[in-house]
């Protein structure tokens, strides 16, 4: 039996979220930024899926008997743009912090460098 599309999307979002959270809990700025990005992807797909999953249904009135909900698609565009901007900013910030404290540990303390994972 083929698993349903809903099941696949839901587990996909769940797995991506879990990866994002795990990465965010690391002690180094690079995995943290990566984790934020991955979490952002999961959230974006989640918003998209909240309009329910449709196949062969365009989000335009009058194109067929069924229409997909266009609003989550508009919301997700906004969320993607904002996520893109903040990711750019946080990368630059992590680099600055690295230069200022000579470590990429999120607490910026060289003494923690050995103990951090």
């Amino acid at each position, binding site marked *: 039996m083929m698993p349903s599309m809903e099941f696949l999307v839901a587990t996909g979002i769940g797995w991506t979220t879990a990866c994002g959270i795990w990465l965010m809990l690391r002690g180094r700025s690079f995995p943290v930024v990566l984790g934020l990005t991955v979490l952002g992807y999961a*959230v974006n797909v989640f*918003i998209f899926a*909240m309009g329910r999953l449709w196949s062969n249904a365009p989000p335009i009135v009058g194109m067929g008997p069924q*229409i997909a909900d266009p609003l989550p698609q508009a919301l997700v565009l906004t969320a993607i743009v904002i996520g893109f901007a903040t990711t750019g900013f946080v990368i630059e*910030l992590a680099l600055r912090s690295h230069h200022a404290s000579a470590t990429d540990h*999120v607490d910026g303390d060289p003494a923690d460098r050995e103990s951090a994972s």
Partner: protein
Amino acid sequence: MGLIDQLPVLPVLLPAATAVVLLLIGDHGGGEHNLRRQTLSGRVAIGSALLGLILAIQLVLQAADGNLMVYRMGEWPAPFGIVLVVDRLSAMMLLLTSLVALPVLLYASGGWAGHGRYFYALFQFQLMGLNGAFVTGDLFNLFVFFEVLLIASYVLMLHGQGRERLRVGVHYVVLNLSASALFLIGLALLYALTGTLNMADLALRVPLVTGPDAIVLQVAALMLLVVFGFKAALAPLSVWVPATYAAASAPVAALFAIMTKVGVYAILRVHGVIFGADAGASAMLVEPLLLPLAVLTSAIGVLGMLAAQTLPRLVAWLTVTSVGTILLAIGLFGAPAWSAALYYLAHSTLTVAGLFLLVELVAAQRGAVGARIEPASPVAQPALLGLMLLLAAASSVGLPPLPGFIGKLMLLQASSGHAHAALVWSTVLLAGFLSLLGLARAGSTLFWHVRSDMPSGASGASAPLVVATGFLLATSVAMSVFAGPLQRYTGAAADQLHDRASYAEAVLGEQGGLKARTTRPYTGRSGTTP
């Protein structure tokens, strides 16, 4: 449409346009040739803030008559288009933002603005986000304006640079981005179950959600409580506040005093009104949570004040304590308690903002000891700064006849008859007493335990800095003088929040949106679109 109809959108457009002008003027950081640009930028920014203040006063005057000003972007009918709504609460928050912004800008123009680039432009973007969050009538736009104010705040927080700011800045940004992700998940769930994110429409549709769907809806609402609680410094999500506020430069910390209130405002709108008494299966969702968490917030706040080693940390913990008191009042539900919450909110924002500026003035005159709370050489202006600190401290702990006392009295009166009245009374009174201890300890160390063996050579603060700080504290004290009209206003604002029918009628009614029922969950049939 006349200019008067465009009024609700102007508090958003004015700072946005000013910010663009300031970007065009440019700012190359330090250097002699940049001084003229800086001066010009400062004048433009202060002029714009003054205009914003006039605008906010005009909006308050209009809202005071009970008008609900609804502005539909591009004439799209609600709930489909973007809608801005200014009621008494929104107008009051706009005025409060302007009252904080103007003196803080004046203060920043006295030196801080030159410690980095584009301070004025970012300040205006932050104002745009704050004003937008207060006027929007739609939860997704609330998210967008949150992001606008946060992105500006990320850079403002780092203003002046330095290792400590960068270290705390990384934490601040990462925490806020995680909160934003949670915000989006909550919003998506709300939309999935109700098919709308318009606040007026949500208030109508949330009661219709029942059964298992209602549980998912409540999960979404509680996720939003985590997000707003994080912004508002609700315990246990308040631990980031002192580090961040203490690391930020003084004018930025003063402006951030209003940022915690955005979280409080959002809790009031979403959990107070939409998930309030009339929300059917989800009614009074956060009532069992908000009161204990607010008590915890107050407790952590005063303990932090007692343990604080530096002045900015002391004030930052005072911010947390005051948020605890405000949320306590919101958690009591009912118009009198909310009226007290709004009065206390306005007072504590002004006082805390003034204190952030004041402690920097004090620290600057204490030589190498700076902001640490330990004996040092006497400050150059002991009478002036000491009296200002005394006034602010007495008001925040709630000594009569200052506004802090009136706010707490309103809260205690509103709590009488409530099941947890004893808890509320003991929290408010104990928190007040312990804040008094913390502030008295700091004040006596600063002004009385002076060491004359240390070199004093510090000069007095320049006039604009003192005027800016004094203005904030004077506005706060003026709340006591005009307590009668202000109380009537906050009382009317609280009543207006409870009047969900008029709100829905004003936002949706004209366009027949009240009857525009789409079937939810969305089925995809063309026939179901309104």
